């Protein structure tokens, strides 16, 4: 078991000017489960592959434990990886697939079969040991890929979207299995996903990447409650946080003819450059208030999800001129008493539930 450290690690693919991973600084504790999330193409896989040794590190360093592995071939790093398409050897049985690394490491036959047997039992693969990957279902293949990683008992597990080829239900089921498994083994794990639900449920900490740059790395709760910038605020949470920019006025930000109160010093710092303030608020934090007491909106669409209903509303037309990029404001309500389409509502956000950002730097202002 070991810690993992990225120190200003950068990867620039040949023939591209922009780094795929740009000066990544990240320290992962011993036994920690770290999730890398971000939109497609943000450099998650590249970061993981740099750690695995499958991708060169152009500048900076990667450390496993205290050992600098930047120039070490993958073989010497003592890591195991679960690939998105599992990459099982098609001509080998499940048993041989799981035991391959051990065989190459020169372990005895008895030891190999003991360890493979143990892993197979944990993953409930006992009945399939003599089958080939071709004759397995997607979920079973996924478990074999996991098994191949755990028999190695490596310092670090790397997983690149290991659940993305499973159907929705199996994904949820396997997600809990992975969580339990990794908890039990206590192995340091770096897990890549673009699914934020996976990220929030699995990770001890979650690192959000965008265009190769680390945006924030925090525990899921902190990430949700205190996003460091507008991007993280919009990326984490579903439906996304409402983010709007409006002129700073005395006591708050003017939105659709009403004023959302913002604490004075926060307002002053956020509006310092432009006279405008970007504020964000989550759909579940919005309160419906009496007419005239809040931001006036019109309900466009009502989405009934059973436990919740989401209202997609627009700022009332005559008041949008002072708001930058007016978009839908999403509001969560009780499904049974949800307003109907076309209803006019008045919205308020309780104190302390408003996230304030500087419109120029997009950074959080506290």
């Amino acid at each position, binding site marked *: 078991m070991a810690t993992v450290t990225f120190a200003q690690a950068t990867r620039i693919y040949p023939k591209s000017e922009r780094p795929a991973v740009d000066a990544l600084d990240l320290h992962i504790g011993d036994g920690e489960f770290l999730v890398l999330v971000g939109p497609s193409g943000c450099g998650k896989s590249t970061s993981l592959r740099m750690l695995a040794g499958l991708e060169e590190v152009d500048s900076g360093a990667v450390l496993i434990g205290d050992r600098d592995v930047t120039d070490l071939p993958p073989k010497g790093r003592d890591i195991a990886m679960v690939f998105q398409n599992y990459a099982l050897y098609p*001509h080998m049985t499940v048993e041989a697939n799981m035991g391959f690394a051990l065989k190459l490491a020169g372990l005895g036959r008895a030891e190999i079969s003991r360890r493979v047997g143990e892993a197979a039992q944990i993953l409930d693969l006992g009945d399939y040991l003599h089958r080939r990957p071709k004759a397995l279902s997607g979920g079973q293949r996924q478990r074999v890929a996991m098994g191949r990683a755990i028999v190695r008992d490596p310092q670090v597990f790397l997983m690149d979207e290991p659940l993305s080829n499973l159907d929705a239900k199996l994904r949820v089921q396997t997600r809990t299995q992975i969580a339990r498994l990794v908890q039990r083994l206590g192995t340091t794990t770096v897990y890549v996903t673009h699914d934020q639900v996976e990220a929030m449920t699995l990770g001890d900490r979650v690192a959000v990447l965008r265009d190769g740059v680390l945006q924030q790395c925090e525990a899921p709760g902190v990430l949700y409650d205190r996003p460091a910038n507008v991007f993280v605020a919009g990326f984490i949470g579903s439906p996304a946080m409402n983010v709007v920019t409006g002129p700073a006025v005395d006591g708050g930000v003017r939105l659709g003819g009403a004023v959302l109160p913002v604490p004075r010093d926060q307002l002053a710092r956020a509006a310092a450059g432009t006279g405008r303030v970007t504020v964000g608020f989550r759909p579940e934090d919005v309160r419906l208030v009496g007419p005239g007491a809040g931001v006036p909106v019109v309900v466009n669409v009502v989405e009934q999800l059973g436990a919740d209903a989401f209202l997609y509303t627009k700022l009332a037309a005559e008041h949008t001129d002072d708001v930058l990029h007016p978009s839908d404001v999403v509001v969560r309500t009780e499904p049974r008493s949800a307003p109907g389409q076309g209803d006019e509502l008045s919205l308020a956000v309780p104190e302390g539930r408003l996230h304030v950002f500087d419109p120029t730097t997009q950074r959080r202002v506290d």
Partner: protein
Amino acid sequence: MTIASDEPQVASIAAPSAPPGPARRPSRLTRNRWGYAYVAPFFVLFACFSLYPFLYTAWISLHDVDLGDVDGAQWVGLANYGELLTSEFFWNAARNTLTIGVLSTVPQLAMALGLAHLLNYSLRGRTFFRVAMLLPYATSIAAATLVFGQLFGRDYGLINAGLEAVGFDRVDWEGGTWSSQLAISVIVIWRWTGYNALIYLAAMQAIPEDLYEAATLDGASRWKQFLHVTIPGLRPTILFTIVVSTIGAVQLFGEPLLFSGNGTTNGGSSNQYQTLGLLMYDQGWTNFHLGQAAATAWAMFLIILVVVGAWALLARRRARAER
């Protein structure tokens, strides 16, 4: 025109109640009429140029036929085959074909595999190497063999000059049994290695990259990756190239013919490199015994059938054992 062509449709709409009796359903043959029509040209050509000569050869092989008088054929039953089996020329040619076949096919496929593996790794100049590898294949055998004839020449050949330079004796390449067969194998290897390498390369590129990455992380060296990822992934392709080269080896004709340098078909003064192909030509067109030649042709066909059948059986057994 449009009005006229509309009419039957109108009629059929107006009278939709015609029962779909069995008599109205087109039979399978007529339903597939166009399908058969489309594939017919192939079968006509196949019948003319493959099936007919094939059967005619079989027919001829049962007769005593002189090249000058094909109509005066005498029915002799299996006598031509009997004669073949007792002919020392046949066994000599069969032996030569086998040794040249092994000497050329095995190194050729092994080298092709190695070459493809190297090319699969190094990306730079790949197109150049691809073209370079196809060049020998695109060269006419006659030209190539002439050049090789010069190289392997006894008195002025480059190879002997080289051997002498490093202190060995000259070798009479054409005169000896092993040396001549080796020389012919070299020509065959030169010609076909690149071709097979390209086939392997294409198959290698179909092997997913992440298998190699997984193997790397599992601690496999390049060589182990070759053994445990590449070779298993290429197995059907390897079988295919073995079958094709086997057929080529049994039918080997041009290289030994031209290697002799004087256009004779006896394959050297003591038939030391006469292959079955040369023997057949010798029988038919030098000695005018068409029946004999046809029997040899059929014997070659049967040999190919047996060898390829054995390979196929072996492959099937392996595949089943793996399931």
